[in-house]
Structures are given as structure tokens and as C-alpha cells.
């Protein structure tokens, strides 16, 4: 056999894994891994931009992802640079240093999701508050559907957004009972929330500071609660001479 023939025999098939590595590196596919979470095992998907979705690790998650985002999923390890931030972000219920990929969302939805991500752990806000913060006070319904389609639940804490009548509202990740569990785990007193809702209390004011807050705001909770004043509207709180809390911005 000639040298030329022997050299041409040195090439073969493409080794396993390279095409998949290219698909992940170009963003034509997302990677996924399974993580433990407070609501059971979840599938976290990611790409070069960041974490792209969180879903329950139930049968058919690959098909659900493909039909929602139009890309295939491959079993992969997240980029080393931020892999360790995934469990941190799930535990804290906010992205923190974890990059998130919200390219599938509209600019309004991205804005609303970013605001939702700023709600502190252990606190809840009504849909209407998010709409106002997003400078679209009439868009509470659109905020509701944005939360329902939140691609990254647990990490973007849509479970902290509730109906203004005190009902918890829907939850996309496995149903309302998971929303209850998550909030209870964060120390939200759900019985107290329901009680306030039954009495139509929207905000509470602290006479010693002259400030009114959302009932779960850490500022009003730090006051000790014994002397707080309940209000059904922010208008009534302001009429009584109280100022809105700069932390929870009750409007």
C-alpha cells in the first residue's frame, strides 16, 4: 500500500460527543441536568446565555422543552463559571449571580420577571404591584400571564406574586400546593395572609415610623406588629398621614 493510501486510512468517523458539543456551544441545543428542589426533582436547562428553564423532572420534559423553545435538549454539565450558582439561586429563590436566558420573552415580560426576581424571600406582592412597578398599572392581567409562563420558576420567584384579594393564585410548577409549600418554607404566615385578605387589608402602617407597607414586608414585620394599623387602600393610609415604605413601594 502506498503512503498516500495509508494516510487516507487515518481518517474515520466523527468521535461521539463532538456534534453534541457543537450544538451546545452554538446554542442550537440546550443542556439539562436534574436537581433536587423543595418541590421535588426538577430539570434545569441552560445554554451559553444562562439558565433557560426549570421544569418538573417528569416524563416528557424533553418534548415539552422542544415544543416550547424549538430546541433539542442534551444531557450536559452547566458551564463551570456559574454551575455552583444554580443550587444557590434555587435555595435563595432569586438568580443572584446566576445568568438567566430570557430571550424567549417579550421586553415587557422580561421587565416584569426581573422585578419579580427582586421580591425578597419570605415576602409576597400582588399582581397589580408588579404592573405598577413595570410602569403599566393597567396590565395586571398581562402580569398574571407572564407569571404563568415564567420559564424559570423557583429561581425567578413567581411564587411570591399573589392575587390582591389574598388568594395565592395559580402556580405553573405542579400546581398551587407547591406555591403554598414554597412560601411556608420561606416563613410566610399563610394563615395571617388569609385573615388579612378576609378583612380586605391591603397595607399595614407603623405609627412609630409613619410608614405603611405590604403586610409581608420585612420593614413592617420588624416593627413587632402589636401596634400596626390596617388599611384597605393605600389612599386611606396616605389620608391618615402615612408614607409609603421605600423598600416594598406599596404605591
Amino acid at each position: 500500500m502506498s503512503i498516500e493510501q495509508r494516510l487516507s486510512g487515518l481518517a474515520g468517523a466523527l468521535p461521539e460527543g463532538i456534534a453534541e458539543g457543537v450544538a451546545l456551544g452554538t446554542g442550537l441545543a440546550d443542556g439539562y441536568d436534574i436537581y433536587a428542589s423543595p418541590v421535588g426533582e426538577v430539570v434545569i436547562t441552560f445554554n451559553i446565555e444562562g439558565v433557560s428553564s426549570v421544569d418538573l423532572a417528569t416524563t416528557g420534559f424533553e418534548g415539552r422543552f422542544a415544543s416550547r423553545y424549538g430546541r433539542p435538549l442534551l444531557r450536559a454539565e452547566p458551564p463551570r463559571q456559574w454551575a455552583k450558582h444554580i443550587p444557590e439561586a434555587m435555595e435563595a429563590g432569586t438568580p443572584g449571580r446566576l445568568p438567566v436566558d430570557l430571550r424567549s420573552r417579550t421586553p415587557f415580560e422580561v421587565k416584569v420577571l426581573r422585578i419579580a426576581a427582586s421580591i425578597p424571600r419570605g415576602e409576597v406582592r400582588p399582581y397589580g404591584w408588579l404592573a405598577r412597578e413595570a410602569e403599566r398599572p393597567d396590565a395586571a392581567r398581562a402580569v398574571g400571564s407572564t407569571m404563568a409562563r415564567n420559564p424559570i420558576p423557583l429561581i425567578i420567584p413567581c411564587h411570591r406574586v399573589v392575587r390582591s384579594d389574598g388568594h395565592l393564585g395559580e402556580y405553573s410548577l405542579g400546581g398551587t400546593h407547591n406555591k403554598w409549600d414554597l412560601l411556608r418554607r420561606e416563613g410566610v404566615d399563610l394563615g395571617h395572609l388569609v385573615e388579612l385578605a378576609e378583612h380586605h387589608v391591603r397595607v399595614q402602617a407603623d405609627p412609630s415610623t409613619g410608614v405603611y407597607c405590604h403586610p409581608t414586608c420585612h420593614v413592617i414585620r420588624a416593627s413587632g406588629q402589636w401596634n400596626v394599623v390596617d388599611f384597605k387602600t393605600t389612599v386611606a393610609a396616605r389620608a391618615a398621614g402615612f408614607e409609603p415604605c421605600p423598600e416594598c413601594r406599596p404605591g
Partner: protein
Amino acid sequence: MDELTAELARDLDSSFPHLVKRAGPGLYWGLRRLCGDHQEAEDLTQETFIRAYRSLSEFDRARFADLRLSPWLWTIALNLGRNHLRNRSRRPVFVEMTDHGDHDPEPPDTAAWDARLSALTINQRRAVVLRHVVGLGIGEIAEATGRPEGTVKADIHRGLEHLRRVMEQER
């Protein structure tokens, strides 16, 4: 424009996997013979395609019309090889469900070729590998390496001569 180039121009995302399938084996095995290391050849192959994808996504119709895929991919690959660029940590890393591990696909008897090829000058080795392992034409090699066709021919000729001498000494 060949059929694949036309497809890439029409719908890059859905046709790019076809490019990887077609050009991937040549790129990997050519790089493998040039750098002599499985892991490095794998990294360079992936990085070449990732760079190519990013460039192609900014190409207009006219640039696609002028594109000659193989030499263009090899221009990227040889540049990357020069810089030994590694930035895997910025991307997800594929995990195989069936455990092939990090196994080297090389049949053991061909490893001797790396020793033989390392006796060549870098230009001879590049020209010989691109011509006879990858199967590029002289014009394509000239384009990929930025060297005149006559020089490429001479590199291949001298490279093969050198290999023959090395192999005679082995006997």
C-alpha cells in the same frame, strides 16, 4: 454555491448540523494528525464549528455566494490551532448518557503516524495531512493556509519524500 452552502444561506440553524456531519470527520481527523492529541483535536473541532456558526450567522447573501466551505473551515481551524485557544468553561459540556467516557477513538497501530509526521516541518505536515488525510485539493489547501499553490505542491512532495525515508529507516 453547492447545495449545503445554499441550505446554510437559507436556514442556518436547521442546516448547520448537516455541515457538522459532513465536515466534522475531516476536521477532527486532520486536527488529530496535526496536534497528535484526542482531547485537543476534539476541543479545536468544536471551537472551529462554533466560530463558523457565529460568522455564518452574520453572513449576507453575497458572502455565502463566495464561500468555499472546506478551505474556509480550515482557515478557522488552523488559526485556532496556532493560538491553542480553549474556552470550554464558558459553555455547557455534553455528558454522554451511555458511558463512552473520554475514550480515545484512535486504533493503537495508527499512533505511530504522529511520530512519523512530527519529523516533517510544520508546513509540510499541514500540507500532507490536508491533502491525504483530509482529502482537500491543492487550491483548497492554498486558500486555507494562505500559501501559493506551487509552494503547497512542493510541501506535499517533500513531506511525502521525508515520510518515505522515515519509514524505510523503521525497517
